[in-house]
């Protein structure tokens, strides 16, 4: 079965070593946990912990003034392979962590943990940190969602983007009222400055292609309500699902690529419907003025400031503040991938990833989930291919289909082995190759069961044709045989 191994280093800073250690530092320990998805499938997680005390350089780094500086200083001293974690334990009375915060999770793969007095308390805290930074039982179950018995996972748990070899991202500017607004957006600059760093970091996960377009006279499907108190127009939360459909027909997607498309729409409301705000379920306006739909993309409403003089001539020139827009779009991109920071316990402080868009441990989070999902997909695909071939015995397997199957099996075995050794990057690449090969084998156009006649159909067609024709032939054959036998007997009779 699949074993997920996380190599972890727990480094004790000066003054933080608990009194009840089982053996003197350094020592190793292993913690295993089983995540059971259904009766037959389970995944074991294995944390290989290496406890040691801090080196001189690390002690100097931990003596920094703030947690950010300590994290930046510790980064070059860490093990930076994908999937590994480093925990620095700081004394309880440390000034690095603010009051009430017990854990500081940095941008890379490390965290500063406040010592808890005893080893057991420290281990409990470390377990919480590893749950946040690598994977949880529910994230693995969500990756294996098609194996979970129905009813156990809520319908919302399967909403993240499925693991795919590539994604197409399309930025669209919707201008329904070009007579009143001339909208200029520097999308190319914004993509180069803000989007490319994030996609660069995500390039380990998949290939991304970005395009953009401007659509004129594209209206939303819902008419917003005018609210007298705020003298603005409001879109209520329950009308949002109907907004997307009329626009979707015009969005288009590349005819050549089969990758899933993520659409990010920027809507500049009409002059007569400005300003437009989105209301959430409780009736309060949403601060980002944006909403997203799982596996589809996101929409943000960009309100044009009212002109200084009411007699300003139309059309108004609008220069879109791309940084503000990209902040929302990139946050939506993170949410679509499932990287949300909402379920973190309150005593954790998470460092913001800045322009990179996601922290290293969030990238690891994605890689764990996608690797497990890929391995599960490959095994399901190959099993169902084998079942299909069993059912239709006379199907012809071409050589390249066979070689793809062999390659898929070899890749998935190598992925499982690498996971059990703790090499996340290699395991992910192997699982990607396995998925490519298995999909190519399964969806080969020659495997259509229609082209191969089952045996009972062959009998059903040929028997009614040949049986009546065969009756006189068989009868005359029998007559011939009888005659020759009689003929053979006769000479002996006649003397």
């Amino acid at each position, binding site marked *: 079965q699949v074993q997920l191994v996380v190599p972890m280093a727990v480094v004790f800073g000066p003054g933080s070593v608990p009194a009840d250690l089982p053996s003197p530092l350094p020592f190793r320990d292993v913690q295993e946990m089983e995540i059971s998805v259904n009766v037959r499938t389970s995944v074991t997680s294995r944390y290989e912990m290496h406890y040691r005390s801090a080196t001189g350089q690390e002690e100097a780094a931990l003596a920094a003034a703030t947690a950010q500086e300590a994290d930046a200083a510790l980064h070059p001293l860490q093990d930076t392979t994908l999937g590994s974690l480093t925990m620095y334990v700081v004394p309880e009375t440390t000034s690095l962590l603010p009051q009430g915060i017990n854990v500081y999770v940095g941008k890379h793969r490390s965290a500063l943990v406040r010592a808890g007095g005893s080893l057991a308390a420290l281990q409990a805290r470390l377990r919480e940190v590893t749950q946040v930074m690598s994977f949880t039982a529910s994230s693995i179950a969500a990756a294996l969602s098609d194996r979970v018995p129905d009813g156990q996972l809520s319908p919302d748990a399967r909403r993240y983007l499925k693991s795919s070899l590539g994604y197409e991202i399309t930025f669209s500017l919707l201008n329904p009222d070009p007579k009143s607004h001339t909208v200029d957006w520097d999308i190319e600059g914004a993509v180069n400055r803000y989007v490319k760093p994030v996609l660069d970091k995500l390039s380990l996960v998949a290939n991304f292609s970005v395009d953009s377009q401007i659509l004129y006279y594209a209206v939303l499907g819902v008419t917003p309500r005018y609210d007298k108190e705020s003298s603005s127009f409001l879109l209520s939360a329950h009308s949002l699902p109907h907004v997307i459909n009329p626009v979707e027909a015009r969005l288009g997607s590349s005819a050549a690529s089969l990758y899933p498309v993520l659409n990010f729409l920027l809507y500049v409301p009409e002059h007569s419907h400005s300003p437009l705000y989105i209301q959430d379920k409780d009736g309060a306006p949403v601060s980002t003025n944006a909403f997203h*739909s799982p596996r589809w993309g996101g929409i943000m409403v960009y309100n044009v400031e009212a002109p200084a003089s009411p007699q300003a001539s139309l059309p108004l020139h609008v220069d879109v503040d791309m940084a503000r827009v990209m902040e929302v779009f990139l946050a939506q991109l993170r*949410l679509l991938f499932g990287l949300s920071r909402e379920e973190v316990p309150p005593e954790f402080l998470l460092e913001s990833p800045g322009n990179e868009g996601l922290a290293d441990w969030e990238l690891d989070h994605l890689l764990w989930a996608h690797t497990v999902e890929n391995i599960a997909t490959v095994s399901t695909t190959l099993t169902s291919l084998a079942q299909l071939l069993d059912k239709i015995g006379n199907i012809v397997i071409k050589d390249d289909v066979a070689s793809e199957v062999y390659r898929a099996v070899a890749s998935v075995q190598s992925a499982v082995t690498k996971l059990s050794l703790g090499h996340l990057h290699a395991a992910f690449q192997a699982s990607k190759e396995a998925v490519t090969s298995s999909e190519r084998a399964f969806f080969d156009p020659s495997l259509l069961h229609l082209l191969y006649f089952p045996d009972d159909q062959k009998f059903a067609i040929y028997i009614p044709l040949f049986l009546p024709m065969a009756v006189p032939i068989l009868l005359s054959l029998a007559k011939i045989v009888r005659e020759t036998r009689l003929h053979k007997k006769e000479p002996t009779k006649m003397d």
Partner: protein
Amino acid sequence: MAAAMPGASRARAAAALLLLLGCCGAALAAGLQDQAEQFLRSGHTNNWAVLVCTSRFWFNYRHVANTLSVYRSVKRLGIPDSHIVLMLADDMACNPRNPKPATVFSHKNMELNVYGDDVEVDYRSYEVTVENFLRVLTGRIPPSTPRSKRLLSDDRSNILIYMTGHGGNGFLKFQDSEEITNVELADAFEQMWQKRRYNELLFIIDTCQGASMYERFYSPNIMALASSQVGEDSLSHQPDLGIGVHLMDRYTFYVLEFLEEIHPASQTNMNDLFQVCPKSLCVSTPGHRTDLFQRDPGNVLITDFFGSVRKVEITTETLSLDRQVAGFESKFPEEELVTEPLKYAEQLPVAQIIHQKPKQKDWHPPGGFILGLWALIIMVFFKTYGIKHMKHVF
């Protein structure tokens, strides 16, 4: 006097308690209803539709009109063309026998033109074959097929499959030359389930003995409707004397009238769709099959399959970006591939074509069948008229 006071205060206390209980009850009920709504909602994130008309020739106008009216309803309720695979086996709108070209009507007196201005047919005329239909469903499509001809559904897609044409007990006729059996269809759905190409599937069929087509399904999450039971014929609705053919089939006609009342936000459920076209109107008995479906049909909205109502979440997080960042140097610089400039081959060498001599066809010796036929004829001739004629031939 003393007795009345405690009574009044007791009554007031009782009223306050009742009010409190009422409020708690309402809050609890709202919380429970929210949970119940969450639980009963379908888990799909996108919708697809595969609409197939399998018969050709002018007198099968009604089958094309059937399919186009379902196409129209599905588009009106929100599914975009990129998510609809429309297969029409013949072109009725531009048929030479159509007295009103570029229209296909569903109601007599030409009330409703279901052809519209923006119909997008993906598989047309002779491309509608059993093989192509099964390729679309299972995804085993040659790599050169364009995106509009593919069913790119995933495990969160609800798919509507509508088929109409001439059928019989256990089969559906395609193009008057081949047929698809219910076993093949059930196997195709099982292949789709194995690869998780659908979340839930609604299968509607409007042919004679339509219920036989869904008898063999065995994959989960499929709901099926048919216009008639085994042994019954589905009848057509009404002819239009101007066009000269029957315009629609009865079952689809009443389904279209039912769907015209639905709008994207309506809460009508499947149980109402099952009641469409009772025996008095349809003459045949429509049937349905829900045993493979996990949710209760009463909780399934019509728009879960016919429309495209997306799940939406409000974005509450933002990323904080440093605006002072200059240009960006990618960690993985793209290598510049040096390619030589390409020239397009001449696609239509008109001068060559019009001056070409007709190609000499190679002579092939007669095949086995012709030889066998001639041998048979000669044998019969000589058997009848006697072997003595042989010497005159040779």
